[in-house]
């Protein structure tokens, strides 16, 4: 009941006219960047990080949360009408939703995606509301050893388990941790990897890395494959109001998708890819029309879209309660907290109740706005999809440049931005995931801090990590997460005749 009181207070914060305006701005910008291919919430929030110097934290986080949720809604519109999934989590939607659109059922596909997203995000937000306090109580028992072990587990699952290759995922992670090490060591003040330059002493700005990888890298990648015929934007010909049969086939898929997505998102592993695929296979299994799968089955859009949004909501649980980001966007949000000198984690609920509960309340409100924004107004977003490529990418690069150069006025940062763009291009072309770089960059320094604290407590004895049951369990899980899939693969290979 204590929670409901907090939540009521949160609504009082979120419903002030100024915060409502921030929320509207957030969900609108979020939907737009979700719709535009090549842009995403991580990049957008990174570009808006300079706002944190000017705007009070509650307003900034209401804006960022709106972008975070909005991008999920917008992304499904693009997958359905354009069949270019912006991220791996929307591959399934692109698969079934685009097929539906080709059969003239684009309206129903958009509708089931939007309403499913609404149902999932709302249930997910309820999950955040009631999970945050108990999880914080558990987290308060964590010492540096447990935190470090938890971070190791998150590192491993984010880079080695999700994605197509453990080796490439871990390489991305190591690169990210390396970028995070550059600059003055926080504890001893010694410069590391600065190559004697003055500009690198303060470390590499998160904004530069995120914008370099996601905006410059993506633009380079898309330019390099222009010979490929561009995909056409499909028309919405049917009504966006679903028929009774569509509703009957959708609602159970939404609920199932939500309950698959939220718990997986809330685990220290995070990731929206596994729950969407899982939901897709569950729906295919349970459907009365399995023959429609692969040719535009509405359950195949409803379930995975719900799973995607629910897991996005789930990711906020470890972020707010433990300070543990498990996606690129969550990591950027963590760095936004840092620029306010706020530490997310167990103390956050006590030290910043206005911020946390205002943020959670704004998620409920934002969801309702998003439903309106994405169903009756879907025609508007279809127009945005038709912006010609030359203008879109020209604009993206101009904003990427001002976002970086504008805050530091340093040509070194600009060169770094474009160099990281080159790295992003290679990573995209050779299938290295980008999220572990961002997570390594932001979580790496925190992990190092916890590691050194732990070592100070236990007088430099590494065994201390294994002496504590909780940290031992977390480290064992991490070891299993790396070794398990490799062992499974070699076992299967042995079964197959050579």
């Amino acid at each position, binding site marked *: 009941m204590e929670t409901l009181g907090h939540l009521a207070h949160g609504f009082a914060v979120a419903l002030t006219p100024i915060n409502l305006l921030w929320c509207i701005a957030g969900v609108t910008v979020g939907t737009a960047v979700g719709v535009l291919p090549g842009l995403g919430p991580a990049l957008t929030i990174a570009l808006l990080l*300079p706002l944190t110097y*000017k705007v009070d934290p509650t307003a900034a986080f209401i804006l960022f949360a709106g972008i975070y949720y909005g991008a999920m809604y917008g992304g499904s519109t693009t997958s359905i009408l354009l069949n270019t999934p912006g991220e791996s989590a929307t591959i399934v939607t692109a698969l079934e939703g685009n097929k539906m659109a080709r059969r003239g059922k684009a309206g129903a596909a958009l509708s089931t995606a939007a309403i499913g997203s609404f149902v999932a995000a709302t249930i997910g937000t309820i999950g955040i509301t009631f999970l945050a306090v108990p999880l914080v109580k558990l987290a308060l028992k964590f010492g540096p050893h447990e935190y470090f072990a938890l971070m190791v587990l998150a590192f491993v699952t984010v880079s080695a388990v999700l994605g197509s*290759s453990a*080796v*490439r995922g*871990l*390489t991305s*992670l*190591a*690169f990210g*941790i*390396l970028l995070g*090490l550059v600059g003055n*060591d926080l*504890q*001893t003040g*010694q*410069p*590391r*990897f600065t*190559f004697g330059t003055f500009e690198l002493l303060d470390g590499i700005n998160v904004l530069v890395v995120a914008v370099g990888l996601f905006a*410059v890298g993506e*633009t*380079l990648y898309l*330019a*390099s*494959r*222009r*010979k*490929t015929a561009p995909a056409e934007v499909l028309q919405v010909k049917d009504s966006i109001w679903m028929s009774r049969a569509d509703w009957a086939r959708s609602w159970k898929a939404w609920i199932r998708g939500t309950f698959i997505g939220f718990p997986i998102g809330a685990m220290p592993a995070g990731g929206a890819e596994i729950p969407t695929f899982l939901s897709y296979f569950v729906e295919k299994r349970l459907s009365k029309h399995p023959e429609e799968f692969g040719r535009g089955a509405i359950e195949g859009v409803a379930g995975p879209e719900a799973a995607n949004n629910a897991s996005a909501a789930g990711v906020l649980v470890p972020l707010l309660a433990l300070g543990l980001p498990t996606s690129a966007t969550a990591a950027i949000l963590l760095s936004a907290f840092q620029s306010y000198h706020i530490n997310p984690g167990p103390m956050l609920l006590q030290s910043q109740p206005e911020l946390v509960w205002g943020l959670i309340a704004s998620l409920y409100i934002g969801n309702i706005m998003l439903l309106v924004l994405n169903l009756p107004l879907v025609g508007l977003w279809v127009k945005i999809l038709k912006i*010609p*490529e*030359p*203008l879109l*990418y*020209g*604009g993206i*690069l*101009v*904003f990427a*440049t*001002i976002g970086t*150069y*504008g*805050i530091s*006025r340093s*040509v070194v940062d*600009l*060169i770094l931005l*474009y160099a990281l*763009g080159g790295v992003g291009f*290679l990573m995209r*072309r*050779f*299938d290295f995931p980008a999220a572990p770089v961002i997570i390594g960059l932001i979580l*790496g320094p925190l992990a190092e801090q916890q*590691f*050194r604290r732990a*070592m100070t407590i236990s007088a*430099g004895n590494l065994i201390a990590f294994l002496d504590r049951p909780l940290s031992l369990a977390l480290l064992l899980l991490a070891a299993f997460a790396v070794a398990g899939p490799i062992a499974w693969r070699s076992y299967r290979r042995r079964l197959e005749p050579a």
Partner: protein
Amino acid sequence: MNKDVSRNDTILGLAVVLLAIIVGWQTTLIPVNAIYAKVGPKVFPWLVTAMLAALGVALTVQGFRGGWSRQLENEPIDRLSLGWLLLALLLNVLLIKVAGFIIASTMLFVFTARAFGSHRYARDAGIGFALAFAAYFAFDRLLGYRIGSGIIERFL
């Protein structure tokens, strides 16, 4: 393992090994105060060195065994488009201090649009200029970030 060696993937693996060597070399140069010797500022750098070295070797071995990038749907690179885009970025770095943000960004916009196949230079220059102008105004005047002067900026 008699598949062909994947040249690109092997080079990439070796590049990661090279990065590990550079990181290791730079780690030895980190000054350490004796008080912190046990869990000092070098522990994580060495960890990253070890990770990069091991992963670089693993990637190189994968490259030798045929690599992974062949299975990706990689079309041949459109060199012309990529070239225009790289030129756009290079010009921006060279011009931004000399000519100022607005002119440099307008050029960036026009060249990027060219990279994506536009030949309507006048239109692109107009839109690019408007966008750069608006961005400059918002950042420099409204948000108060000093972006610096330039050929056009000094008249504003």
